[in-house]
């Protein structure tokens, strides 16, 4: 009988994620999906999966799994987690063929806190509203809509992993930590004073607050000055939107954010940079730089080409 991975231990917020849910925002269903969708796609690429295959997402915390199928191929990518196989160090960002009984352990991360475990062929999961992404708050997706817990078993779709040469991500393609994030101003930049916008773009070190999660990153430091009472009639929002509530401290919406919000938005972090923001832990310092829509879309296109070329750039191990 094919089985897969038994969860021996999983840190808080370890969930199944893919590239998120589309088509139900008009009913209030958020996109959710991976906090770092780029890292998820790289992990999938390393095991030869379609890039949107559901993976196990780790958020800061550690996790241990035991292989309960004959063999499987997996790869872990993203964050500064350490990997070990049966107690010995194992390479990250590299495909690995595991045998029944092997124990794969992922340590907790410090500076880059989202990591993805992809398994060749993916897991047997029932999509909900078109996606397997877990949204814990609305009990959607994954296994029963919740985070992974010790004792749960994920069933692999592939019965075994045929032996072949493994691949690894070249060092120069490993992600680098970003501290400055590009934004497109708007759509309510006119609800802020000139000084407010200046403060937002020229504060060199906003700090990611400890009260930050997959819904949003609260930033402390300078207060952004706004016009009026700081409320708008609710309008649609997307991940990356920088809301400024009455406190004047910006809140950057992340993957699990609501579909609508009632605070004015000074800017939106561009899609190419948002995964790097999602990697940062509380306490990290960040700043923002305004770019044009053209520059943002050029960066997006460059990222798309980078991903399309990625399978050809992997190093084949001897």
């Amino acid at each position, binding site marked *: 009988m094919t089985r897969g991975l038994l969860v021996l231990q999983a840190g808080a917020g370890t969930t199944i994620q893919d590239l998120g849910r*589309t*088509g*139900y*925002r*008009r*009913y*209030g*269903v*958020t996109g959710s999906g991976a906090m770092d969708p780029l890292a998820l796609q790289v992990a999938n690429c390393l095991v030869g999966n379609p890039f949107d295959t559901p993976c196990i997402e780790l958020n800061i915390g550690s996790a241990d799994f035991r292989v309960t199928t004959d063999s499987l191929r997996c790869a872990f990518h993203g964050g500064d987690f350490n990997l070990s196989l049966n107690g010995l160090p194992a390479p990250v960002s590299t495909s690995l063929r595991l045998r029944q009984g092997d124990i794969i352990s992922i340590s907790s991360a410090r500076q880059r806190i989202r990591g993805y475990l992809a398994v060749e062929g993916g897991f047997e999961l029932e999509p*909900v*509203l078109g996606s397997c992404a877990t949204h814990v*708050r*609305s*009990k*959607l997706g994954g296994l029963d809509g919740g985070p992974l817990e010790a004792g749960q078993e994920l069933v692999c779709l592939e019965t075994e992993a045929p032996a072949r040469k493994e691949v690894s991500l070249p060092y120069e393609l490993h992600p680098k930590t970003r501290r400055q994030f590009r934004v*497109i101003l*708007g*759509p309510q930049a006119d609800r802020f004073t000139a000084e407010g916008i200046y403060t937002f773009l020229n504060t060199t070190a906003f700090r990611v607050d400890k009260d930050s999660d997959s819904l949003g990153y609260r930033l402390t430091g300078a207060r952004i000055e706004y016009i009026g009472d700081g409320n708008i*009639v*609710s*309008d*649609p*929002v*997307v991940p*990356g*939107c920088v809301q400024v509530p009455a406190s004047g401290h910006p809140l950057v919406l992340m993957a699990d954010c*609501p*579909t*609508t919000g009632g605070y004015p*938005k000074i800017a*939106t*972090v*561009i*899609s*190419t940079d948002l995964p790097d923001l999602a990697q940062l832990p509380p306490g990290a310092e960040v700043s923002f730089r305004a770019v044009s*829509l053209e520059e*943002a*879309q050029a*960066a*997006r*296109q460059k990222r*798309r080409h980078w991903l399309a070329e990625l399978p050809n750039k992997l190093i084949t191990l001897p």
Partner: protein
Amino acid sequence: MSEASLLYTTPCYSPVGDGAMLIELGQGIDATLNERVLQLETYIRNLKVAGVIETTPAYASLLLHYDPDQVSFDDLQATVSSIHLDELPTDRKRYGWQIPVCYGGEYGEDLDAVAEYHHLTSAEVIRLHSKGRYRVYMMGFAPGFTYLGGLAEQLHTPRRDNPRLHTPAGSVSIGGMQALIAGVAMPSGWQLLGQTPLATYDPQRDPPFLIAPGDEVHFHPVNATEFKRLQKAAAKGKWVAEKVSLND
């Protein structure tokens, strides 16, 4: 301010990041304006514009999620600008819903406080709330959260100073001039008047969502016994709300 003045003469288009376009048709909370947003949404969905992935309508604005590899912001804006907003089809399908609510007690913990705030009896609050005709202005925030306009002025109540960390799915509450049906359990600062056994959102049911933006909602009081009976029926996938077409 007259209703018409809430509508802009020409819509305002702005990028929301590099994959979405916000179309603001006006400002404020107004049924004519909101209906125009939904007419435009329906029209754009029917056009099946290449590159438009998804639409999110709200009170006075519509967000188009698009793939910039398939359509540029400028081309999308040109397409939408060429639509004559005054000539949009007005025969969009709309439904009215009769929704049971169990008011007060453990089902609506703020009912008495709201009554006291307005110097009314709890029975008067129930009567005022359940005789209202509400418009669904928006579904947003979280799955099945149904934002309603049309709350009687005598019931306009500020939100709670201390939001509750847990309110159940089906909560029927009020906040400011708005009323709300909650689709899933959430923290909330709104004043809880009651609870409906109707699941505005149930991923196991086909369809997962019943009520849609632009629909009309009416509430009728039920007692705790009836609530429990309906809740059991809802758990089996029954709608427990009556639906009528508003197009005839």
